[in-house]
């Protein structure tokens, strides 16, 4: 009898369990197309890592709740080498073969431009990170947003800052065949000219150049009173190192967004001492907010290396996507998610310090704006010194007037 009762009780419990609604977890695949190898990997790889980190945090916190379903994120990352054709192939693969609708990453302007040229016609949403070429967000592509502000937005602020320091003759040494670096310098020059200053020379280097002594020697002969270095981290580090080796005694300003570790692979801390980096207020440990400090710790724990300053653009993309998915209440309707992104307030979890336009993270062009900051290398670290004058509302209006 006892056995019968216990059997019945067991069966009843089993029936109750079976009758419970099953709270199954769905998986939502998100894609990353970025430079994981090659020269641009200094930006692309940290971005891919940042997306994976954000996804793991979101999953650990219970996933994304959309329309009564809970979704866990799965990240599929492909290397586009910062090359336009490779990026097109990677994104085609993500969309057509892997069925991915949300694609993040995009550190490099050429590769990003190639994907942006067709993404409008795809059932997908593209979230651009570090790629700074202005034209990416001038066409108001409805399913494209970008977390990093265009280079000229920052260049203008940098020019005003350098002019305010009293410099009148600035020599430029940069990767000037790269569009967004050239546009940074153009905007810089306009502000410098307003204050009566001038650029005395524009010397160029290529991505793989390492010997900058010819350009630096020429600059020394021009009696410039400041040096502006714009370009990728590694060649910029060689410039800073060689400027000291040549005894060039000039205030050195830059636009590189490299981390301390990345610079110290090439130059010593003494050679870097006093260098300014005039850029969006990206992550540095000494300037970070609470989110930034946590991001830095979690990233370092996960990958055994400090995050690059620009990597949170991709981290923030992931949280923006999460909030947009939840607001849209769908993972299938990409148009609704794209609209939700445009209406999104700045998520609480982001690392960068965004300046909202009309209370929204992205303007009507799909462009987000951060504050710009002056960072200086002091005793082995990038130290945040001050905000640079930035007017995102005016810039957003200007961006809307461009084709």
């Amino acid at each position: 009898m006892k056995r019968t009762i216990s059997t019945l009780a067991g069966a009843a419990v089993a029936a109750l369990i079976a009758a419970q609604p099953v709270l199954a977890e769905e998986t939502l695949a998100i894609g990353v197309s970025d430079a994981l190898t090659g020269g641009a990997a200094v930006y692309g790889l940290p971005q891919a890592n940042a997306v994976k980190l954000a996804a793991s945090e979101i999953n650990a916190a219970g996933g994304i709740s959309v329309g009564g379903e809970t979704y866990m994120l799965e990240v599929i990352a492909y290397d586009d080498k910062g090359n336009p054709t490779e990026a097109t192939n990677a994104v085609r693969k993500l969309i057509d073969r892997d069925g991915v609708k949300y694609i993040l990453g995009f550190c490099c302007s050429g590769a990003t431009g190639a994907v942006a040229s067709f993404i409008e016609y795809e059932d997908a949403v593209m979230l651009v990170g570090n790629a700074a070429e202005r034209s990416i967000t001038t066409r108001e592509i409805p399913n494209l947003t970008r977390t990093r502000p265009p280079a000229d937005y920052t260049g203008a602020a940098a020019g005003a800052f350098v002019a305010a320091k009293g410099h009148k003759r600035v020599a430029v040494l940069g990767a000037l065949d790269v569009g967004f670096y050239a546009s940074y310098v153009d905007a810089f020059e306009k502000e410098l000219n307003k204050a009566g200053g001038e650029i005395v020379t524009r010397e160029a280097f290529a991505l793989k150049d390492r010997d900058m002594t010819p350009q630096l020697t020429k600059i020394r002969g021009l009696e410039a009173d400041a040096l502006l270095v714009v370009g990728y981290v590694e060649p910029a580090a060689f410039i800073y190192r060689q400027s000291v080796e040549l005894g060039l005694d000039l205030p050195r300003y830059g636009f590189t967004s490299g981390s301390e570790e990345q610079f110290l692979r090439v130059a010593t801390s003494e050679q870097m001492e006093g260098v300014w980096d005039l850029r969006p207020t990206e992550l540095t440990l000494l300037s970070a907010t609470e989110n930034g400090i946590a991001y830095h710790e979690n990233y370092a724990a996960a990958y055994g290396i400090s995050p690059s300053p620009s990597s949170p653009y991709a981290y923030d993309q992931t949280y923006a996507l999460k909030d947009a998915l939840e607001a849209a209440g769908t993972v299938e309707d990409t148009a609704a998610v794209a609209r939700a992104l445009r209406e999104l307030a700045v998520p609480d979890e982001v690392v960068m310090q965004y300046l909202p336009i009309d209370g929204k993270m992205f303007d009507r062009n799909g462009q987000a704006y951060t504050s710009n900051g002056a960072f200086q290398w002091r005793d082995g670290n990038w130290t945040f010194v001050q905000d640079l004058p930035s007017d995102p509302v005016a810039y957003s209006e200007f961006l809307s007037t461009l084709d």
Partner: protein
Amino acid sequence: MTRIAVSLLYAGALVVLIALPQLISVKYYLHLSILALIWLIVSQGQNLIQGYTGYVSIVGAGFMGIGAYSTTLMGMHLGLPVWLTILLAPPMTAVFALIVGYPSLRMKGHYFAIVTLAFNLVIFIVLLNFTELTQGEAGITGIPKPAGWLEALNFRDREVYYYFVLAVAVLTTGIAWAIVRSRVGQILMAIRQNEDLVGALGVAAWKYKLFAFVASAMFAGLGGALYAHYQSFINPEVFGVAQSLDAILAVIVGGSGTLAGPMIGAFIVIFLPEYLRFADSFRLIIYGLLLVLATIFMPRGIVGLAQDLGARIAGRR
């Protein structure tokens, strides 16, 4: 292999290519096939100068760039219809090839290769720095698809574009075949075997070399134009020396001096790196290693290997 058997093989390959969009369910592979067909056109041109004439030119991608930018800029600034700009791209490229080829072909062997490499670098630098015209590294976006007298066809549909590029690839392969079979083709092959002897016979070899070089450039220009209108975006990076090396590899791996070689090679240089994506950062190392091994152990390419195997099987019978 008999002529009938070869014809049957080509016909079979064409049938497979025509049926391909119906056979593949994932459009990504269709995208890769379009790129491979564009590379087939470029490689057939490369084969004329490299495979049949014996001169390795490292400017194929540069000429592709001239074709791509020609069609784009003529459409943007002169308002010409896409069909016309695509048709004008090869002659535009030919003009540049004449200017480049005339001095270059005075060189022989490695020197010719180095001169063409330098020209590819020059083209790349001009495309990168002449920003007023080319928009530099940022590239040109929104390049339109073909339209006009075939408006009923939506060229944004990849299947439609695939058949369009396939038709052009068949046409260019036919032209390559006609050149090779002609007296000109025979002289080109004679130049490859012994240029001095050709000269001793009173043939002005330089004219034929120049013809092969210009023809190969026109093929590349056409490929570049098709690429630009397919991708709707171009920037200089796509037309660098690395891509010229891909064209050379397509010819070598497929089978230098054969019509089928570039067809096979073009699909390999497009599909192989994509299939190796699973290897992450080792992808390019593996790709490079496979190509080195293929070049060492299959000097006559896949077509040569197939011919050897065919001959061996026939010999056993």
